[in-house]
């Protein structure tokens, strides 16, 4: 609409542009500048204090030959796939169930969303107790009579990451459900009517009509879940502090530990640069789908 007049683009909405200068500066200096600084110093051998003493890729070689980092990456992958799949599936199913015009919908919505109001630290501590063999689920079931019942994920190195995923799902699924519910409510009632007239069963309507229509909601949800996966830290600290041994370590914890406990900034920066790379792998396809896609339409 404005194309016909075409005034000087630079001075359109001047007030808004002036008002956003602080934010633009913050973004450039703090985010972009800080990132560039971190990447630059990851090529140095900085210890406690940052120093420009370049050592090439040494920090990265060391990083990728450290067993703890490899365990962290493996854990992140397991945790990531589990959170992504289960929070999407459970969140969508819950939303679809709530969407059946049931009674007390508000109550259920509140119950499901409530865990999201708790921080990861509180969630972690709650589940640390629930999963503790001497106080939690195992103890309760055993005291009910099933003496041989065993459920002890947090002290078993091979399954500890699943114990952490359970807590994360409990906390995060409610939010995903709400996003999905909002998406479902955005679908026009007429589409349902049309599908019913054509005699399409409900599950088929969901799978082949509703879900494809909800693409933008799914993409937003995906990005929220993915960024939550990459930065997981406080949950692990509260639940197991990385243990038993190093079995539940995650990359963010490696970065923090090596920057501050080990006083080795270079190593921490190298690890955080690798994390940035993994975020880029998530963000770039999303940006392409969101922005690149719209132009084609």
């Amino acid at each position: 609409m404005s194309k016909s007049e075409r005034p000087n683009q630079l001075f359109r909405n001047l007030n808004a542009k002036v008002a956003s200068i602080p934010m633009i500066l913050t973004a450039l200096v703090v985010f972009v500048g800080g990132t560039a600084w971190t990447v630059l110093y990851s090529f140095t051998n900085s210890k406690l204090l940052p120093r420009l003493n370049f050592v090439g890729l040494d920090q990265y070689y060391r990083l990728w030959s450290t067993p703890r980092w490899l365990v962290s990456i493996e854990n992140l992958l397991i945790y990531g796939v589990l959170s992504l799949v289960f929070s999407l599936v459970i969140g969508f199913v819950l939303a679809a169930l709530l969407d059946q015009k049931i009674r007390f919908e508000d109550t259920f919505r509140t119950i499901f969303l409530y865990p999201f109001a708790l921080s990861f630290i509180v969630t972690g501590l709650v589940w640390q107790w629930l999963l503790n063999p001497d106080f939690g689920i195992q103890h309760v079931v055993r005291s009910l009579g099933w003496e041989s019942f065993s459920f002890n994920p947090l002290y078993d190195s091979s399954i500890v990451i699943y114990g952490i995923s359970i807590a994360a799902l409990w906390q995060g699924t409610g939010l995903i459900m709400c996003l999905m519910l909002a998406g479902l409510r955005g679908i026009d009632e007429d589409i349902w009517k049309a599908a019913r007239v054509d005699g399409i069963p409900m599950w088929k309507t969901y799978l082949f009509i509703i879900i494809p229509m909800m693409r933008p909601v799914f993409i937003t949800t995906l990005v929220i879940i993915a960024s939550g996966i990459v930065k997981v830290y406080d949950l692990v600290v509260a639940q197991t502090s990385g243990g038993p041994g190093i079995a539940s370590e995650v990359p963010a914890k490696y970065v923090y530990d090596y920057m501050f406990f080990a006083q080795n900034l270079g190593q921490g920066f190298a690890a955080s640069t690798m994390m940035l790379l993994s975020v880029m792998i998530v963000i770039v396809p999303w940006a392409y789908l969101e922005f690149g896609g719209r132009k084609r339409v």
Partner: protein
Amino acid sequence: MRYRLMTAALAATAALQLAGPAAATDLEVTHWWTSGGEAAAVAELAKAFDATGNHWVDGAIAGSGGTARPIMISRITGGDPMGATQFNHGRQAEELVQAGLMRDLTDIATKGKWTEVVRPKSLLDSCTIDGKIYCVPVNIHSWQWLWLSNAAFEKAGVPVPKNWNEYVAAAPALEKAGIIPLAVGGQPWQSSGAFDVLLAAVGGTDAFLKVYKDKDATFAAGPEVAKVFKAADDARKMAKNTNVQDWNQATNLVITGKAGGQIMGDWAQGEFQVAGQTAGKDYTCLPGLGLNEVIATGGDAFYFPLLKDADKAKAQEALAETLLDPKTQVAFNLKKGSLPVRGDVDLQAANDCMKKGLDILAKGSVMPWTDQLLSQDTQKQKEDLFSEFFAKPDMTVEEAQKRFADIVGSAD
């Protein structure tokens, strides 16, 4: 209204500033001594410092040294230094000193004849960088103690062992009686520290120094250190049922007789004391695991950041002198359960275990510890390795030793 409040506030600050110079100089001191006994010990330091006409502003940081050190370091590097701060003397503050952020105490040290009174000498050596003294050691803590529960061994029907080898031999009897032979908490520093103690006790002082001081990777991969790993493997098997995290929870297992023993530094003694137990009767302590009676001279020290304010700088001098004062040393160390850094003070009130420590110290059987020899980076890598080794029964001794040698080889 708001304006009037503002004026009032301004006037109040002005008045405070006017009153300022007449009052004593405030000096903020940061430390991580927050448990009951530790807080009581700090109160002794504060009392002695206040008596010099200055004022101790307590900057306790809860958590452990691991939590507190990053906060202290970022305050110093970020341009908001405190008056004085605790570190473990050794290499923790090395880079801060090299960056010129810490105050050179050599003049005060010469005046107070520190080189003559501080014992053992290695304490002051770890405060010295390029011939200048940068910190005041306040106590000696040593890691190499084995704490044994007499009740647990009685229940198992075996005599209380006199050294590590007897202890390992007694493990099956303990296990049969339903007692965890060895308590090792899940925090990484505990398993890593236990290994260092084994290295010093089973391998001997020379082996310890060859690995950690000379950083001899070939030696660390060799047969002598393999013996130590064999002992660590025994320890791992003995500790496999400990489901606790914190060191004091593990100590508590020993106090209650649920575990046979624990390898832990002399700070564990405070826990036995609080529980009302007597050394020799309820529990037994074996310095150097009964194999190699040597004490490591790790411990705590105070560092003084370089300040511009002349009054505060003067207060720093007063604090440095107070910390090494014989009376302060006695009062502080009795409450802390550590050994004093001066040989010329009298510790009548010390208990049996502390006296054992003092005897070893008097004989001069001392060695440096990892805080003094290794960088934090190497320490962290070691912690990662040993927490994995202790938690993962299927990790072989050979694999662990190979990785250990790699860490030693790349240590700086």
